[in-house]
């Protein structure tokens, strides 16, 4: 997708306005040039890149576990009606509450190290995969279930060869939302307990309230969020290129 001239004009206009505002109150609004200088300083002196890379590594590890757990749960309630009847209302309940509120409890259970961050990401993220995977499983079984039975495909072969490929477009649609939630979870965790990473960069900016740093850190977070979403979107399209895109 190439950006339209109007979109570029909008961005250019915003940057120009920001630069202009910075000439009046740089302590309040900073400016694009000041932020660029600050980003270079953070990269040189503040370990910006290792901190961001570490955060992304933790996020990806936790996210992988969360996606596996959530998808598996979704598969189970999509496949077995009894499990769906028994647990779906409670899973829906978990889906509509701010699970990030559980972070203080996670601190009590897991301390403030890497394990705590992983647990936080899993807790906040896994639920987003459950319903896409359940819907995908149901659709997949509806379309291919009889055929699979006729050919006596069952057990793990049914799961790996029939259900998962059929459910893939739905799972892929859930991935984009879940990676954004995972980023939020890891940053909140780091911010709260002071575990070094993007979260502590935000914490430092929040403590010092230096306008250049505040904007620089927000831009770094934007870049990480945009990069992750784009990568997951791209990977998802590659994975399910042969199927129609679905939205959930």
């Amino acid at each position, binding site marked *: 997708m190439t*950006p*339209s001239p*109007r*979109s570029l*004009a*909008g*961005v250019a*206009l*915003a940057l120009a306005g920001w630069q202009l505002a910075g000439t009046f109150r740089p302590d*309040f609004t900073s400016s694009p040039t000041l932020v660029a200088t600050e980003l270079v300083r953070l990269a040189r002196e503040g370990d910006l890149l290792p901190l961001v890379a570490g955060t992304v590594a933790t996020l990806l590890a936790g996210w992988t576990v969360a996606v596996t757990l959530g998808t598996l749960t979704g598969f189970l309630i999509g496949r077995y009606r*009894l499990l769906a*009847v*028994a*647990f779906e*209302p*409670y899973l829906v*309940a978990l889906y*509509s*509450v*701010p699970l*990030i*509120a*559980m*972070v*203080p*409890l996670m*601190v*009590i*259970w897991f301390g403030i190290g890497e394990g705590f961050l992983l647990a936080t990401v899993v807790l906040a993220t896994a639920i987003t995969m459950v319903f896409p995977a359940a819907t995908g499983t149901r659709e997949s079984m509806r379309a291919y279930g009889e055929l699979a039975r006729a050919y006596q495909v069952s057990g793990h072969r049914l799961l790996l060869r029939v259900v998962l490929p059929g459910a893939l477009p739905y799972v892929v649609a859930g991935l984009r939302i879940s990676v*954004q939630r995972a*980023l*939020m979870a890891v*940053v*909140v965790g780091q*911010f*709260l307990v002071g575990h070094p990473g993007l*979260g502590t960069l*935000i914490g430092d*900016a*929040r403590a010092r*309230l230096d*306008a250049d*740093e*505040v*904007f620089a*850190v*927000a831009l*770094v*977070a*934007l870049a*990480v*969020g*945009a990069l992750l*979403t784009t990568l997951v979107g791209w990977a998802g399209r590659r994975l399910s290129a042969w199927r129609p895109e679905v939205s959930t």
Partner: protein
Amino acid sequence: MTAPARDWAVRIAALALLLLVWQQVAQRLPAAILPTPVRVGAAARDLLTGGELALAWGQTVTQVAVAMALASVAGVGLGLLLGWYRPLDQLLSPLLGALFLTPRIALVPLIALWFGLQDLAKIVLILAFGFFEVFFTVRDGVRGMERSYLELARAYGVPTWRTLRTVVLPAARPYVLTGLRLGLLHALVGVVLAGFFLETSGIGGLIYNLGAALRTAELVAALLSVMVVGLAVNVGLRRLEARLTPWQVTR
């Protein structure tokens, strides 16, 4: 037994099983790590009768009300405008999209710089969480509405303002309701984080303090109150949607 009644029996049995497992596990662990359901129940009663929970939610509800009022005005207004008028959408969408991709927590330092740590800052943070759901739902709803209605209105020379009022607005109504429900659910995340990272008050502040003091039973009770509110918001507003716009399939 009829099928729905049997389903509910299964559900209640599942809940009872979960509670039983929780009770059994918790009895073998220190109460500071995992309190038993009975203890959590007692803690909930203490929080309710002591007024702590009411105080915290009272502070929070006002902030949410103001923030969501702002979010609905801005979200519905911008959503209608950008969904209807493409050039403006192309101009502004990259900026709004960038703001949407930024994890909202990264805005906390900026909000602290511009608005301090008190009520105003918290309202802005909750607004940042609630706004986008309203805006995107309304914009996409207006964008996806039946083009032939608009063409018909234009063919009959209906003035722009009247088209907006009599064609676009009614078509957008279900999306407005859905957007407000999703926005309010999202705003609850903002509520919690506002209590963690801005001034420690409201329900988020209460959860933060209880966790820091290792008052685990009260902490779990406070978390349950957040869950009950989230659930009530979701179910209640879904019912309202079904009643006000019965022709719309809710998301």
